[in-house]
Structures are given as structure tokens and as C-alpha cells.
């Protein structure tokens, strides 16, 4: 291990501590307030942590719920990405297509995804199809819009430069428009995975035939008055969202548009 890697690890470690510190403060005060009786009906962090360990290791419940959710998320989000980038690209390249779809898109984008769920429950049933479609709808519009915006705002000089260098339509798309659009597309994908994740939790709660899933876990806890389990679920949903946003999408941005100086380091 050389000096620079050591420095880098040290820097990352510092950043991590910086990030975690507020959580420690909240947890400590939460624990104290519950212990001295200032907060009632809310379980203390210590109790929640023990419950978390129990469902993780003793009964394997958590893993099954998370697995089911992640499986749905991957399918729905993957479809949203493929079709969203596809439509967004067409809209970015062809003015006639963007004029046709833009008004519809801006209307649809304003509808909260959860509002679709009742419609989906009737048309697609009470199972996985509904949940996956909700995830898809959650991500699709943001991805389509950010792709279109990214392609439309690629600097004209970059396109002209490629043309003088003998670029044809295909190479222009793959070597200029697509990488040039990443500055909008990647933040769009990042936003979309957050929307999809939220849609997933909501739809799992409402789809009656769904038995497993992190949203279902919380919803079912209601029947047993199991407030502890609800809180554990909430925290896990938050954590998973954070991991998807920071660790997955944030790292992708760091290695691409941030490294290329297309956005400021953040």
C-alpha cells in the first residue's frame, strides 16, 4: 500500500465519521429520552437494534423480505432505464417526437406514482405485476426526461467537431450524444432509483397477494401491533435508499461525470 492510497483511505474514513456523527447524536438522545420516559410508545434504539438482530439471524425473515423487494426493484428499474433511455433518446434526437410526447410527459411526471396503484390493482391484479409496474412508473418518467434533456443540451460545437472528423449518425450518437448526455442522464437515473424505491414500498403495502417484501413487512406488523418491527422496517428502507443513492449511483457519478469535470465534485 503506498502513501496515496493510505491518504485516500484516511480521507474516506474521516468523511464516513463526519457522515455518521449526526446519527450517533440522534440515537443517543433518542435512547436517553425513552429511558427517562420523555418519549413513550416509541421503542428505544437499543430495543430496535436487538429486534433487528433477531429478525436477521434468528428467523431469517429480513433477508427474505429484502430479497423479494430487491428482485422487484431490479426488474422494474431495469425496464424503466431501458425504455426511459430509449424514449428519451428519440425525443432528444427527433424534434417531432419530442413535440408529440413532451406535453404528455410533463403531465404524467406530475402524478405521484402511488396514485397509479389503485388503477394497477384493478388492471394488473394484486400481485407482483402491480408492484413491478409501480416501480417502473416511478423511474420511467424521470429517466426519459433526463435523457432527452441531456441529449438536447449537448454542446453544439461537440457535435460539429465530430462531423468534421467524419462521424456518421451512429458514431455521433455513441461517441458524442450519449456520453455528452450523461451529465443529465446519470443524475436522472439516481433520482429515478429513489422514486422507484418509494413506489416499491407503497405498492407492496397495497398489493394484497404480495407476501414478502420490506413494505409488506411493515404493513403486516400492523396486525400484531408490532411497533418495533415497523421502526426496524422504516430504518432499513431508509438505509437501503441511502446505499442505492450514495454508494451505487454516487460512485458511478464519481467515476464518470465527476472525474471528467462535467459536474463539480460533491
Amino acid at each position, binding site marked *: 500500500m503506498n502513501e496515496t492510497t493510505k491518504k485516500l483511505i484516511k480521507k474516506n474514513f474521516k468523511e464516513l465519521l463526519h457522515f455518521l456523527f449526526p446519527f450517533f447524536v440522534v440515537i443517543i438522545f433518542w435512547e436517553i429520552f425513552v429511558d427517562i420516559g420523555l418519549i413513550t410508545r416509541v421503542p428505544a434504539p437499543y430495543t430496535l437494534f436487538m429486534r433487528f438482530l433477531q429478525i436477521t439471524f434468528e428467523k431469517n425473515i429480513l433477508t427474505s423480505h429484502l430479497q423479494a423487494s430487491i428482485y422487484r426493484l431490479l426488474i422494474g428499474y431495469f425496464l424503466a432505464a431501458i425504455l426511459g433511455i430509449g424514449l428519451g433518446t428519440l425525443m432528444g434526437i427527433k424534434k417531432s417526437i419530442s413535440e408529440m410526447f413532451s406535453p404528455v410527459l410533463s403531465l404524467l411526471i406530475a402524478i405521484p406514482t402511488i396514485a397509479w396503484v389503485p388503477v394497477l390493482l384493478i388492471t394488473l391484479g394484486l400481485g407482483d405485476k402491480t408492484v413491478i409496474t409501480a416501480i417502473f412508473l416511478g423511474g420511467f418518467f424521470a429517466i426519459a426526461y433526463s435523457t432527452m434533456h441531456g441529449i438536447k443540451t449537448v*454542446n453544439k*460545437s*461537440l457535435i*460539429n*467537431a*465530430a*462531423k*468534421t*472528423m*467524419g*462521424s*456518421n449518425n451512429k*458514431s455521433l450518437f455513441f*461517441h*458524442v450524444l450519449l*456520453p*455528452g448526455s*450523461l451529465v443529465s442522464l446519470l443524475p436522472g437515473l439516481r433520482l429515478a432509483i429513489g422514486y422507484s424505491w418509494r413506489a416499491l414500498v407503497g405498492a407492496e403495502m397495497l398489493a394484497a397477494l404480495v407476501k414478502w417484501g420490506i413494505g409488506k413487512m411493515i404493513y403486516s406488523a400492523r396486525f400484531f401491533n408490532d411497533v418495533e418491527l415497523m421502526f426496524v422496517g422504516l430504518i432499513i428502507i431508509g438505509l437501503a435508499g441511502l446505499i442505492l443513492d450514495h454508494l451505487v449511483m454516487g460512485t458511478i457519478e464519481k467515476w*464518470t*461525470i465527476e*472525474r*471528467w*469535470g*462535467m459536474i463539480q465534485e460533491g
Partner: protein
Amino acid sequence: MGYDTRGIMNMTNKSKIQIRNLEKTFSTGKTVTALKKINLDINDNEFAVLLGPSGCGKSTLLYLIAGFEKPTKGTIKLDNKIIKKPDSDRGFVFQDFALYPWRTVLRNVTFGLEMKNTPKQKAIEEAKKYIKMVGLDGFEDAYPHTLSGGMKQRVGIARALVYHPEVLLMDEPFGALDAQTRKHMQMELENIWEQTKKTVIFVTHSVIEAVYLADRVFVMTARPGTIKGVVDVDLPRPRNYTDDKFLNVREKILNLLESEVEKSLELTGE
């Protein structure tokens, strides 16, 4: 044979670039004539400078030669073939550099060769040669955003030369640089031009830059843009900015320009 004061016609077909009765209008609401009755010939290996006040259409003329825009009337020929669209027989250097931020210096320079399906190893070799020529060896793996303006434009020049275009079109390439860097870049460009002997069409509004670099300076009028006169710069290279002859040529061009600059200021109300 030869050239009259308006420029321009070379009666043989030997000229590299041949522009006849060129006119360009833009209509955004009302119609604006950007260029009118442009006739000019640019010879092979010539360093031609288009000079004029801002808004005179000199960049538009360059964009037409590049094929980014289409003429409203008239024709532009390169090697006797009418220009219809951008292609790799013309290299273009942009004022805003137009480098690909996601490509390293090396990969920016190989872009044109990749489009020609040059084998990878050969493309890298060629690119390195030109990167060296513009004085950037050692920076092959750097990303553009880490470079200074002057260095970025060196990449821009290497990238436009590497695939051997017939003509190099330069749109105020040093306009975004500070005065010191600009002077330095002019010297280096002249060096590069001496080595490659390309036909260059260079757009600028700096008279000094024009006199320093040009074989011939085409002075343009403001709105609509026409060629007002052609000044031969018959001075040995490299030129000295303070030399008497240099200053004489500069004076001559300034006289041609003066009324035009006033006109363009009136029109824009600055």
C-alpha cells in the same frame, strides 16, 4: 490574373477554396442578411485570415465552409467539389475548444482516426506524433478539464490536424486566451503551419494577430458581411510586431476597418 481590391477572382480553377456569389440570410422572425455577394479564392498552402468587426459574419462564413450551415445562394467549392456537409477533408478548431470531456487528451486526438477506422495502434502512434508537435507530450492521459486554456487549444489543433484534412478552419481559436498565452500560441501556430503547410482559414478580430499570421487578410464589412478588401502581407516570417513594415500593413488594415467598426457600433447601439 491577380486580384483586384475587392478580392478576389482567380480566373483559373487552381484555387483550393472557391467561393462564388455566396449569400446567407437567417430568418428568425425577420430576415437578416449575414453575408452578401461573397466571392473569394484561397490558394493551396495559403494562410488566409478573415478579419472584421464583431457581427460581420466572418464566423458564419467559416461555418459555411465547414458545412455546418448551408448557403442561401451561391456555392463554395473545395478542390472543385461543391461543399454540402461537414466532412473530414476540413479540420475545424473552435473558439470554445470543443474537446470531449470524457476522453483523455490522447483519445480526443485519436477521435478523427477512429472515425476512419484506423487500426488502434497506428492511431495512437499518429496521435502521439501530433501531441508532441503541439508540445503536449506527457499529457496524453490527462482529461481536458485539468488543462489550461492554451493547452486545451493545443489539443484542439492536434485533433484537427491528425487526420490530414485538406484545409484547417480556425474560428477565433485564441479568442478565449489571455494576452500572453495568445502571443505564444500565434508563434506556435506559425511553426506548425510551416511544418504542415496546410491551407488555413483563420477568423479573428485582432488586426495584430491577422498581420502576424496571414499571407492575405480579407477585411470584411459589417451587416451585411461582404469582403471590403484584401491585403497582402508580404513579410518574411517569423514576423516582428514592432517592425516598421509590420506596422505599415497594420495601418493599412486599420484604415480599411475603421469605418466598418463605427458602423457596427452604431448598429448594435453599444
